[in-house]
């Protein structure tokens, strides 16, 4: 079979698609916390996407992609049997998997998919793993069943209260603390403000926080420095030194500024794409 072929794709909600892709070289080397860089077409961007699952025997990798801009919208219109143009990886430093004790894995939105392989690996390493999953509403909450299977306990929070606790992941963590749960480390993946406030809260509660950062990337191999972030006052490259960093000292505000740099251009090509594109599913 041709590498990069999509074996199956499944919509998890209106904006999120789960892909299983034939890519043996990456499937055999992947570790929790790593990512790939995708390209969909000639002239297309290089888009970093976290590895959610992999099967080295069958040579398959699983990616879960949320349509945000033009490239991710284009990806999510690909069908089984079609190919990604390029997939490079596995990139980044894997998360250090060891026995921490009790850990909280915290996912927000599509970040739930990204934190899933970390939860699974931490469980296999003998940790007590508590999942804290957050989304705006019930429809956007993904992978609860998968998480429940690999975690000792799973808490859900939705902004509108349509499922689980009404509130943020920080409210759920506060509840865990209040009931006397002693948590040693937290692994957080989600929108930047969510990672910032969750890290701050964990610091206060005596939990060591780690966050997986998503700055703009270009090559993803440490060559361009576009993804530089400030951690402990030092410049680090998220693509090779991360993407997961101890998050107490991350300069999240700088990260927000740097990821917003091309907002106008991103909106421009997305609008053009939507105008040109006739959706295959007939729902849009």
């Amino acid at each position, binding site marked *: 079979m041709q590498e990069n072929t999509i074996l199956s794709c499944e919509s998890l909600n209106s904006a999120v698609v789960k892909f299983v892709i034939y890519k043996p*070289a*990456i499937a055999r*080397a992947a570790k929790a916390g790593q990512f790939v860089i995708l*390209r969909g077409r000639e*002239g*297309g*961007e*290089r888009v970093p996407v976290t590895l959610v699952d992999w099967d080295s025997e069958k040579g398959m990798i699983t990616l879960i992609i949320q349509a945000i801009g*033009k*490239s991710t919208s284009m990806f999510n219109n690909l069908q089984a049997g079609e190919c990604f*143009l*390029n*997939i*490079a*990886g*596995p*990139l980044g430093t894997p998360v250090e998997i060891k026995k921490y004790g009790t850990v909280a894995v915290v996912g927000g939105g599509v970040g739930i998919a990204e934190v899933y392989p970390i939860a699974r690996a931490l469980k296999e390493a003998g940790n007590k793993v508590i999942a804290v999953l957050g989304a705006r509403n019930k429809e956007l909450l993904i992978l609860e069943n998968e998480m429940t299977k690999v975690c000792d306990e799973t808490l859900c929070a939705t902004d509108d209260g349509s499922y689980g606790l009404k509130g943020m992941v920080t409210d759920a963590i506060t509840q865990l603390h209040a009931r006397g749960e002693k948590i040693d480390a937290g692994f957080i993946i989600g929108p930047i403000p969510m990672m910032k406030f969750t890290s701050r809260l964990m610091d206060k509660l005596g939990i060591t926080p780690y966050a997986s950062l998503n700055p703009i990337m*270009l*090559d993803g*191999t*440490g*060559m*361009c*420095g*576009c993804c*530089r*972030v*400030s951690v402990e006052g030092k*410049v680090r490259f998220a693509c*090779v030194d991360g993407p997961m960093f101890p998050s107490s000292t991350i*300069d999240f505000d*700088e990260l927000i*500024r*740097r990821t*917003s*740099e*091309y907002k106008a*251009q*991103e909106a*421009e*090509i997305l609008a*053009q794409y939507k105008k040109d594109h006739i959706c295959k599913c007939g729902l849009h």
Partner: protein
Amino acid sequence: MPNPSAPRNNGSQQEPEVRKHNFDEVARTFTKQEALAEAERCLHCKNARCQANCPVGVQIPAFIALLREGKVGQAAGKIMETSLLPAICGRVCPQEKHCEGNCVLKEKFGAVNIGMLERYTADTARKEGLLQPPQTAPKTGKKVICIGSGPSSIAAAAELARAGHEVTVLEALHAFGGVLRYGIPSFRLPREVIDREIETIKSMGVKFVPDVLVGATYTLKELLAQYDAVYVGSGAGLPTLTGIKGENAVGVYSANEFLTRVNLMQAYKFPQTDTPVKIGKRVIVLGAGNSAMDAARCAMRLGPDAVTIAYRRSAAEMPARAAEVEHAKEEGVAFEFLLTPKEVLTDDAGHVTGLKFTRNELGDPDEKGRRRPVEIAGSEFVMPADTIIVAIGQRPNPIITKTTPELKTTSRGVLELDEQGKTSLAGVYAGGDIIRGGATVLLAMKDGIEAAKRINSYLEGK
């Protein structure tokens, strides 16, 4: 009869006012008449200093003689006996430091324009279908991996294929050519020239594989277990930053990022391509090497009001190829010397508003003989800017060395070779910027060719 006293033909270029708005090639290829007239100037010195000073030993008088006889295909073949990338070398080599810098005509009449003759020979032979891919020796059954598809790695791959080995080139990015592709702009080296030179190497049986990052997709030791030898030509893909305050502000690019956006991702074609690049009204480029010139000239083509190169030493110490400095000046790039950057200034939203400098004077020479800049007390001032591009050098990308602890490196991450040009791991050879820490295309090619010869003798004994 040679005609050495005719004036050197420097070649013609697109007019600066025109070319600063496009990414088409600046220098035009010689016409046939121009090429023949320039070839007539060569004295065919017996102990040709040009050839002796060519790092890859191109047989310069011999190819020029064939060219003069109208045998363009044979002239190209003569160059390719020692260098398989003539269309690239003719365009990007610093000829003034090597062949042309040592031409006997240099002082009196101006050196023969060897660069333009090489380029004419390669381009014309290609166009007329006279370019023969080099003959390869009978298959040896030995398998070699070349890591990276930049100039050193593809030069090595070509030589190894010539010797009959089965060669595979692994590239981390989606397109081949390494720094030729992501670093050097199309107005200096058109993309189709890179494509064609790589096609030649493919036609020798070399396999090119994209999207493989050695150290991540495969470790070096995994490759060693499956192949008979490995050449590491992974380049200097790690940007050097200044470390000054404010460097992470929005609007500060490393030259690698800026050039990768523009050249590899073709951001200048946005929104036809999907990767954007932003350029402010006032651009400062730090540094005065080839990357700095490339960055400044790319920036100029994106339409700002002003582009200024700020260098901490003086004009005489600029490491860039002379022609690039000249072309940058013609295109309106301003040069400010003896300045050390101190701090990036920003507005409340974190966008660049300027760069604080101090002025320098030149002190004693450093270990390379270049006079060291010394700060003048109280000379601080601010240059307004919206975009800053840091082009002060590159270092080796550490992915392979970090994942292969057996490889010895210096404190700057440069791979160490023994006297036989081997790394500390048997069967592993290296060259180009991974052992030099940031040099030229030509020296990278030289390393690749020399390492290939060592690999050939290593494999003979295996």
